[in-house]
């Protein structure tokens, strides 16, 4: 780790100013991603601005019937918040499917969606990585790319975004509120993360002087029909190989609206509106789910070790949709698997 100075921001204004005045400054919130990356010299800030004292921890109702999640509310406090659990169980489940109880107690909502990829080559400074060091190449392309992208990748980067929370936020069409030197702006979730293209060092559209203040959830929470299905190498405390956040509005057996967001497959939470439209007005049948899954994976491209994700992804989409219809994704439990044995 390189040397840095440390300060605690007391107001939003000073935090933004302080950040803008030092080119290599970074905000730190829970620290669970930044500290880790500093230890391996992937991040090397010369100044850390601790923002945890800022009044951005609250979860409050919005006038439009939605909910505002403070950027500094922890992942645990968010997932277990009464209103989140009740109105946005899809989000609660996605958060609780990620990391561990300890990490969720530290991790913040702002930090979660800004966490960086877990690509091995991004972490290993001895290898080429365009995300870490633009122009150096991508060792994952011809390397061990089992965990890498199958959709929206480029010849410059095949890393995936690792957040579970972000996949649910994409399905819920959340908005990210930010403050910078130019004032406030709101970024629709689909425009927040970006595809790698020829600039994979940019994970998202947040500007260097900007700070996330909150995340807004629209009123529609898909509490009646949703599922978060996370498939991984071990059942807990592991990142997704493929995950699916599904939200449905139903009228009897007919789907009136469908949202499907995929994790573990792309540089950003992956949505495909055409596939969602295919389901609108259709009945909830296996054939229709199959058509939607095929559409989502139509342009998927596998690499040496991750082609399995294409079929796995299709099956996961179908299973998540089925779970959303039947609400067999444990509607009464926070956790993603059956837990019936009482203590």
């Amino acid at each position, binding site marked *: 780790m390189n040397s840095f100075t440390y300060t605690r921001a007391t107001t939003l204004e000073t935090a933004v100013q302080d950040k803008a005045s030092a080119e290599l400054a970074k905000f730190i919130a829970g620290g669970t991603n930044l500290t880790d990356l500093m230890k391996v010299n992937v991040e090397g800030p010369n100044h850390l601005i601790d923002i945890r004292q800022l009044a951005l921890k609250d979860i409050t109702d919005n006038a439009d019937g939605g909910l505002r999640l403070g950027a500094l509310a922890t992942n645990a406090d968010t997932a277990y918040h009464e209103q989140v659990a009740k109105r946005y169980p899809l989000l609660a489940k996605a958060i609780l499917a990620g990391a561990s109880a300890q990490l969720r107690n530290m991790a913040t909502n702002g930090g979660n969606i800004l966490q960086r990829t877990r690509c091995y080559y991004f972490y290993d400074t001895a290898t080429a990585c365009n995300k870490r060091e633009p122009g150096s190449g991508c060792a994952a392309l011809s390397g061990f790319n089992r965990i890498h992208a199958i959709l929206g990748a480029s010849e410059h980067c095949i890393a995936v975004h690792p957040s579970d929370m972000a996949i649910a936020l994409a399905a819920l069409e959340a908005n990210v509120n930010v403050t910078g030197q130019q004032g406030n702006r709101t970024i629709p979730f689909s425009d927040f993360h970006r595809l790698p293209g020829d600039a994979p060092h940019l994970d998202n559209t947040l500007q260097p002087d900007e700070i996330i203040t909150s995340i807004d959830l629209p009123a529609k929470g898909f509490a009646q029909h949703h599922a978060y299905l996370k498939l991984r190498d071990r059942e807990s405390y592991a990142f997704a190989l493929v995950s699916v956040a599904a939200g449905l509005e139903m009228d009897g057996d007919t789907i009136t609206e469908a949202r499907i967001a995929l994790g573990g497959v792309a540089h950003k939470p992956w949505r495909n509106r055409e596939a969602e439209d295919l389901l609108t007005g259709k009945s909830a049948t296996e054939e229709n789910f199959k058509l939607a899954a095929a559409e989502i994976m139509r342009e998927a491209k596998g690499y040496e070790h991750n082609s399995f994700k294409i079929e796995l992804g299709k099956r996961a989409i179908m299973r998540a949709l089925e779970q959303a219809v039947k609400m067999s994704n444990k509607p009464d439990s926070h956790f993603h698997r059956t837990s019936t*044995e009482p203590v």
Partner: protein
Amino acid sequence: MQNQAAFEISALQPALPPQQAVTLKVNGQEKTIKLAPWVSLLDALREYLQLTGTKKGCDHGQCGACTVLVNGKRINSCLTLAIMEEGNEIITIEGLAKGDELHPLQTAFIEHDAYQCGYCTPGQICSAVGLLAEGKAKTTADIKELMSGNICRCGAYTNIVSAIEEVIQKGGQAHE
């Protein structure tokens, strides 16, 4: 920008960063130590305060051996900086017993033989104290899921779960 960061790192001379006074409240006692901002809470506990009960397994948030309680919540002390925890109440494994009276979870771990080498145990116990305080574990499967942040290399999981289960059954509350 990452480019520049990498450049800055390599351009730095191997000089130690300046230290500053940081006051940590650990197990009810305030101690002021001088350290550089890069010192993790874990290293501060072990190397500066000689509280070596808290263990370093991976140093990357992947094993839970470093679990301590901050303001009553379980966290990984390897991923937070000591300087960030100034002003917070830190409880480590050394602070759980009241004098000679062990915390119910400590007793249960002994009774259930919930360890082999013992390296993960302080983290397991602190994590379980946090789990009890959270009050979310209603079933055995919940305990397993909510303790998944603590890896046991010796595989003492079965007994760890039964130790925790017993304390929950007995209505064992978290340490106040």
